[in-house]
């Protein structure tokens, strides 16, 4: 076995946990600033909510260009990858931390006021401990997200897409995704298998460790929970089942926490403002914005006016590409939703099947699709090329997209079904509601907030899947010299132009896409989320004075 494999796996893991750590630390500071300053909170929370609903992958080429132009190529690519992974995990952790800080019990805040705790002591002894259970449960999904996006980024940067900004191999990041891409290029399948095994071990160990951490955190830091610190006698069955039970216990806490944050049981902070934290955050946000603006202007100025004019003329065709990709994303999303609703409902209502199958899906979900997809491609290409000669590339994009994202809406729907009050289920059974009525009038409305959240993540990751699927020239040089390519698509246009040195063209369509997804995120996703939060709050359905 190549010794680079474990090191590359550790490098990827290190990058993931480094970025998760950064998200947590910044999340604590931002959440603290939010609860101390109403004005900061009124900017921060809507901003995070909007950014959360925008697919990060749409910005990958653009961000890559900005970082590479500003910094030495290798360092620029590394930072671009890190920025995007950070972007993928940060929102989840930031919002979770904010909600945890907002729900610190009033009497504990009074105690800290009473004894005159300062900024650090207040954070260390009160807010941070209170956020630990929420954070540890959020790290589950953040880890899977980060692993997926880092693999996408590694494949993207190791491939031909960055060939023009940095010659092949000179600036790809060191990680397991890059290594797999290199093994595939050279036809080293043994290397690929060992790499996949290495990822499997890493995923299993991390999932197990996070489950233990989560359970411990709830037992130690949970306020007024029934979770006792349990000591296991070492029976193997208990140990194997343990992580899953912990995960389920965490998931059951989700609706409770959400309900708490909605019911007005929030701490209204009007205490002494911490000016320093607030202004530091304003400054950081301002610098980031200024940097992005400056870099964008540099690109704009460096391109002749005639070139911009030709881009403008090309816009209708580019919009068709965007439309084609939206159609692909829609199909993938619908398939994911159908899978979630059918299998998710089955597993949520058949506990024994759920206990067996859900942990497998959980581990599978944390296993990044770009790492193993080339193998699926290699083994099925002869068959699909023969049976579906005109659309086999589309089928591969669909499969890659589906594998990249189906589990988000699946797990969210499953959690939503679990959170439906038992009274509702009993009512449906008692009155013998037909299956279609039950789904339409009870299950879907009850789980709508969960479905929307899941769909948002699913759509984001579907974009990531097709981003690499439309232009993956080095997916398997031994069986497909041209790789996987679908020219009629925006993601192909971006990647191919970058590979040919047409950075401005890639940036232009990337900007168009960014504008569209921002509008989509604000108009569609946010409105749906607002509707769900106002009308479809299942916790309000059970009145207990």
């Amino acid at each position: 076995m190549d010794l680079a494999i474990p090191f590359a796996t550790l490098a990827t893991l290190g990058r993931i946990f480094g970025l998760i750590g950064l998200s947590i630390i910044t999340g604590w500071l931002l959440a603290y600033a939010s609860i101390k300053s109403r004005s900061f909170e009124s900017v921060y929370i809507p901003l995070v909510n909007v950014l959360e609903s925008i697919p990060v992958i749409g910005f990958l080429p653009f961000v890559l260009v900005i970082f590479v132009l500003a910094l030495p190529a290798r360092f620029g690519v590394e930072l671009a990858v890190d920025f995007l992974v950070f972007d993928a995990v940060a929102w989840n952790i930031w919002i979770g931390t904010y909600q945890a800080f907002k729900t610190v019990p009033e009497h504990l805040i009074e105690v800290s006021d009473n004894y005159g705790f300062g900024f650090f002591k207040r954070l260390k002894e009160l807010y941070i401990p209170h956020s630990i259970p929420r954070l540890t449960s959020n790290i589950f999904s953040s880890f899977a997200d980060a692993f997926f996006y880092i693999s996408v980024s590694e494949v993207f940067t190791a491939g031909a897409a960055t060939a023009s900004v940095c010659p092949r191999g000179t600036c790809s990041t060191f990680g397991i995704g890059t290594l797999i891409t290199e093994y595939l290029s050279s036809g080293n399948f043994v290397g690929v298998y060992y790499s996949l095994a290495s990822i499997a071990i890493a995923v299993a160990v991390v999932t197990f460790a996070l489950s233990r951490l989560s359970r411990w955190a709830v037992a130690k830091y949970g306020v007024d929970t029934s979770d006792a610190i349990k000591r296991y006698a070492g029976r193997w069955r208990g140990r194997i089942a343990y992580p899953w039970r912990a995960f389920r216990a965490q998931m059951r806490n989700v609706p409770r926490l959400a309900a708490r944050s909605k019911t007005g049981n929030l701490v209204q902070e009007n205490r002494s403002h911490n000016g320093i934290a607030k202004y530091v955050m304003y400054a950081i946000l301002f610098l980031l914005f200024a940097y992005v603006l400056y870099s964008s202007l540099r690109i704009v100025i460096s391109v002749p006016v005639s070139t911009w004019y030709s881009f403008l003329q090309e816009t209708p065709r580019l919009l068709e590409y965007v439309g084609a990709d939206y159609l692909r994303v829609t199909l993938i999303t619908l398939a994911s939703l159908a899978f979630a609703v059918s299998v998710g409902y089955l597993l949520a209502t058949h506990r024994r099947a759920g206990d067996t199958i859900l942990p497998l899906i959980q581990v599978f979900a944390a296993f990044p699709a770009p790492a193993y997809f080339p193998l699926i491609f290699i083994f099925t290409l002869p068959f699909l090329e023969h049976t579906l000669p005109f659309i086999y590339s589309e089928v591969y994009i669909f499969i890659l997209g589906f594998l990249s994202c189906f589990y988000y809406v699946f797990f969210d729907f499953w959690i939503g079904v679990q959170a439906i009050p038992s009274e509702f289920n009993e009512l449906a059974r008692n009155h013998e509601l037909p299956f279609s009525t039950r789904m339409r009038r009870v299950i879907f409305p009850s789980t709508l907030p969960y479905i929307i959240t899941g769909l948002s993540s699913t759509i984001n990751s579907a974009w990531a899947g097709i981003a690499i699927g439309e232009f993956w020239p080095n997916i398997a040089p031994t069986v497909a010299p041209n790789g996987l390519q679908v020219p009629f698509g925006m993601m192909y246009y971006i990647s191919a132009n970058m590979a040919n040195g047409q950075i401005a063209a890639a940036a232009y369509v990337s900007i168009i896409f960014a504008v569209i997804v921002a509008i989509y995120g604000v108009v569609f996703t946010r409105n749906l989320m607002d509707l769900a939060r106002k009308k479809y709050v299942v916790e309000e359905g059970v009145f207990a004075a």
Partner: protein
Amino acid sequence: MVVLDCQELSYRFPNSKTIFVDINLYTAKDELVAVVGPTGTGKSTLLRVIAHLIPPTTGRVFLDGVEVRRPSSRISLVHQSIATFPWMTALENVRLVLSDKNMTEDEAIQLSKKMLSLVGLEGAENLYPKEMSGGMRQRVALARALGASPEVLLLDEPFVHLDELTANEIRKEVHELVFNPETTLKSVVLVSHNLHEVVQLADRVYIMNGSPARITDVVRIDLPRPRDERDPLFYDYVDTLYRGLDIRSIR
């Protein structure tokens, strides 16, 4: 004439203790039967077993002489926590249980309105639960249960989440509401901790005690309706029930 007949019911939670055993309980036509017992004797579980929402460990339930083998709206449960769907109006909440009743949309709406009117919610058809008080929500739940054309209504602590004034108001009406000639209802089983409420409403009272719980006594309430709480006999019945409860049995 026996409507509901529960024979030798027992229930044991999976891998856990037995909750109750040897429960024999029946209801006659136009009879409101109550079940009282200390906390933990499994009264709410008993209602779910009767509705077959959870199958009994042993024993059988008969409705009009036919064994109940699956949940059916002919035995309708009104929950202790008032359960109304927040995304549906009062009318839609009632309309929901008429989905499978072989009636047109118009008939279903008319019946829903009639049930809401029956429980005093005429004019509130288009309100959402969050726009209603707890008492109104409980009336919606009651209208929904009655709309399903049940023969037996199971009421699980139906007034426990209401303030005393509202609960009193509904209690006074509930007998007339449920046994209204316009409903299909034949009998009611009420579970309650409130002995005054039980004496106010019930024709017969089953007292459960012990662990596992058993029926230890049955008291017939022979008081004319409407019942007056200031009547000395009313208090005698409350005392009788109180003395019948073995609070220590749950320790």
